[in-house]
């Protein structure tokens, strides 16, 4: 599957099927710091992503000290 990552923007190829939490662990990402989006909707941690999916992992941490 294609996995879009941000900050910086880049794309990875990852073999499916794989559970969302396992994908985040593999990429070293904290589930509290990201949303996983497939077909413009949110995916929960226990969902299984398939090889043909396009997935975005969107960081949610933002902001300078304003």
């Amino acid at each position: 599957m294609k996995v879009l990552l941000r900050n910086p923007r880049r794309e990875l190829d990852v073999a499916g099927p794989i559970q969302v939490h396992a994908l985040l662990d593999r990429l070293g990402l904290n589930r509290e710091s990201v949303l996983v989006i497939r077909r413009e909707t949110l995916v929960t941690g226990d969902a299984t992503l398939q090889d043909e999916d396009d997935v975005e992992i969107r960081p949610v941490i933002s902001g300078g000290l304003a």
Partner: protein
Amino acid sequence: MIEIRRHNAGFCRDCFLHHCRQQVRRTIDDFDMIDADQRVLVAVSGGKDSLALWDILLDLDVDASGLYLGLGIGDYSDESGRYAREFASSRGAPLTEIDLPADVGFDIPSGARRARRVPCSACGLSKRHLFNQAALDGGFDVVATGHNLDDEAAVLFGNVLHWSEEYLARQMPVLPASAGFARKVKPLVRLGERETAAYCVLRGIDYIVEECPMAAGNKHLWYKEALNVVERSSPGAKAAFYFGFLDRARERFACAEGPAAGLASCSRCGAPTTGEVCAFCRLVERATT
């Protein structure tokens, strides 16, 4: 579906949107943030928090206008402004803009460099001053900002690490109006930024996802990452830390609060200041020469 582990709950789309609106309504009521007939100026950045806040306030029938401050940070500012305008247009809500380079005379990257300030510091000072001034000039009762639970917990974490007593005394989701200062409120403090991001995705609100290039490596982001490591193992830790401070500890620092009385007017802009010239006018002078 979205799972919010600190509530030990999963929500469908409609229930989650309802949850977000309820959390903001509860915060406004609990902290007496906004009266029914008051006009609110929302500080809009084009990011998820300020657009989610503006959207929720409008849905709660609050008279909320937006103010976008163009910071002159290249493509990042161009894109942020576009998202702010698109949202305002989609909701038919009034948006005012101030462009720092055109209207004040400097942009954040080069102005901060000339003034020998950290960019986030110059940016924060500019926002505080210009949003406050715009609220006073425009006759708004309240300035609302999109600071969320993660923002407030991270600031608290930094203030505790350094025992910054004066800042701890002022760390409230409401700062009352006083001479020269508009009332300031943070209605999103019961929502984490994962929730505000999810709110925007589920509402179809486009926002700038890319991080500000000036913020890379700042301490505030480190503190957020550190707290999320704790949160992952102990869901609810951030909320317990922040609201526990408000409930049990903040008043102990009240005596450290700076003197509200005794402020003079800036000789250049008239804003309240402890010196002859306010911090923002000093920044402008150094950033433009």
